[in-house]
């Protein structure tokens, strides 16, 4: 979205225009969803986080003062949402074993439909690149977050340094190392895929 148009849209949204909020969702929804998906590796988490971000946007847009760029501001909220969720997951694990049997000898896994996908089965399976997710998970948290914010949030290295409160050189060094590691893992995966018998 152009700077002037974005400024006008934000001003309208701040005045309470539902249409303006929808325009912001149209402009940034895809990138935000991609960011959430690559950070969590799950489509339903990404969808939930996107909805939560919209709620935060409604609550916090009034505080946005047009001095800085909007995208870093928006993606900082998104990064905080992910951090909150990871923290909550760590403090309150909710994993339930699908093979654990109840009193009647039935496992929870048996009760679930054969294929359960909250979004869209075919699309998710096509998109769900497990290798890419694992490659991202192999990076340390900060490097992964910086790379995702750099790509999805289109943040400059200066903005990233401000967001993570670390020197500019350190941010780029992390990005450089992280990208090299990702390419290495991806190259291995690509080789493995191409060598598979058809």
């Amino acid at each position: 979205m152009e700077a002037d148009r974005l400024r006008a849209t934000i001003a309208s949204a701040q005045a309470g225009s539902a249409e303006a909020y929808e325009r912001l969702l149209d402009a940034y929804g895809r990138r935000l969803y991609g960011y959430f998906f690559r950070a969590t590796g799950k489509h339903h988490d990404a969808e939930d986080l996107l909805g939560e971000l919209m709620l935060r946007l409604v609550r916090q847009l009034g505080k946005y003062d047009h001095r800085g760029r909007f995208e870093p501001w928006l993606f900082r909220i998104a990064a905080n949402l992910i951090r909150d969720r990871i923290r909550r997951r760590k403090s309150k694990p909710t994993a339930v074993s699908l093979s654990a049997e109840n009193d009647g000898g039935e496992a929870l896994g048996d009760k679930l439909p054969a294929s359960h996908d909250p979004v869209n089965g075919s699309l998710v399976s096509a998109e769900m690149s497990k290798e890419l997710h694992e490659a991202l998970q192999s990076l340390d948290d900060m490097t992964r977050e910086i790379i995702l914010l750099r790509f999805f949030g289109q943040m400059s290295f200066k903005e990233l340094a401000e967001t993570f409160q670390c020197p500019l050189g350190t941010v780029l060094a992390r990005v450089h190392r992280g990208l090299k590691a990702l390419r290495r893992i991806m190259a291995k995966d690509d080789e493995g895929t191409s060598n598979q018998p058809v």
Partner: protein
Amino acid sequence: MKALQTNQYERIARVLDGCDESLTDSERAAVEEIRRLEADVCGRLDTEVPPVVLSRARARLAGALFRRRRIIRLRLFSGVAAAAGLLLVVALGYWAREPVSVPRMPAVTKVPAGPGAAQTWAPDVTSALLRTDRNADLLMLDREMSELETGMMASAPDVELDALERELQDLVVGDGTAVFPPGL
């Protein structure tokens, strides 16, 4: 490629952010490498968004906006109600402090002297006194009370006349040996 130092990374970062910096050959090579890596790796991060996700997000957004509007209306209403309440309290306070129209005083000019005079205060005058606390009213009442007291007080000629009357009665109803006062 030789490992880069932090200050070299800083210069490279500034160049990647669009600033002009003079770079060494190895730094320029690093810039090219990072650009290639970003294009290669980050291009694969992109993901398609199922349309249903955006429509659900839109619905949540609409719900959040509706709730927000309701909260704003509620706050506005509360503000108006509070202002109206305050106005009411002020009006009631003002009304309570308004000077009460004091009922007409009973005729005080011809109050007979004596113990019965105290009963000339009408009950509504007393209640008026209790209901008002304004200085002006108090002053006015004080002045009227003084006038009343003055009116009730027997004057010196009255006292003399009373004494003469008593002596005259004593003389009329008394024995014949009583002596008339001089002048009679």
